[in-house]
């Protein structure tokens, strides 16, 4: 039987990322197009491609697996453990929890225009402009980190 997977919170993940860990996002590309982690280094490897491509991942570097809520990434974590990877952890809570923490993300304004207009970003012109600004991750985080409920609606 496999050992219990190592689970880390978004705060630890952010620190690990700064210290050189590689984030591996296993969400599908259309999900990532809408909302992506804004970290120094990450790899997109959707679950639909994972079994075929996992060997591209380095074995000698810390890997943190991420997805929307932490379920798919846990599966990917165990798969890598099965394949002999030892420096792998799962980020519990996924990007949803990352956003709730107010950590930086990149939002595609075009892809999120419709839901944004009907949720947190039409409440005020300044918030709307911040949320719609795809280049400013801090502004995006400010919009999405305003409150937990708004985060979920917006992001």
């Amino acid at each position: 039987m496999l050992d219990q997977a190592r689970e880390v919170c978004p705060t630890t993940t952010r620190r690990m990322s700064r210290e050189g860990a590689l984030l591996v996002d296993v969400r599908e590309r259309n999900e990532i197009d809408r909302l992506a982690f804004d970290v120094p280094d990450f790899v997109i490897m959707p679950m639909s491609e994972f079994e075929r491509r996992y060997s591209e991942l380095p074995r000698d570097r810390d890997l943190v697996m991420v997805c929307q809520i932490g379920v798919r990434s846990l599966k990917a974590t165990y798969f890598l453990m099965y394949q002999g990877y030892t420096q792998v952890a799962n980020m519990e809570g996924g990007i949803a929890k990352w956003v709730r923490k107010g950590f930086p993300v990149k939002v595609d304004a075009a892809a999120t225009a419709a839901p944004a207009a009907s949720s947190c970003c039409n409440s005020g012109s300044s918030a709307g402009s911040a949320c719609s600004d795809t280049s400013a991750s801090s502004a995006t985080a400010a919009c999405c980190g305003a409150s937990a409920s708004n985060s979920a609606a917006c992001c």
Partner: protein
Amino acid sequence: MKEIKVLGTGCANCRATIALIEQVAQSKGVAVNMQKVEELRDIMGYGVMSTPGVVIDGKVVHAGGVPSRDKIEQWLAAGQA
């Protein structure tokens, strides 16, 4: 007796796979010991990414989708005198 494990987190396809294997085993008169494996960690211990997975006597014989009746008959016939 064949030890058969069906790997899956309880989805409809997993339940259909269990039912079909039991049905084929009964119709062929093959004694089987069926076991559901639903914990993700246990499932991944077989390296199976796509469920349902089927393990017979410790060997993964199938992963992803409900197996065909023909396929199940072949599994159950293997090793039978």
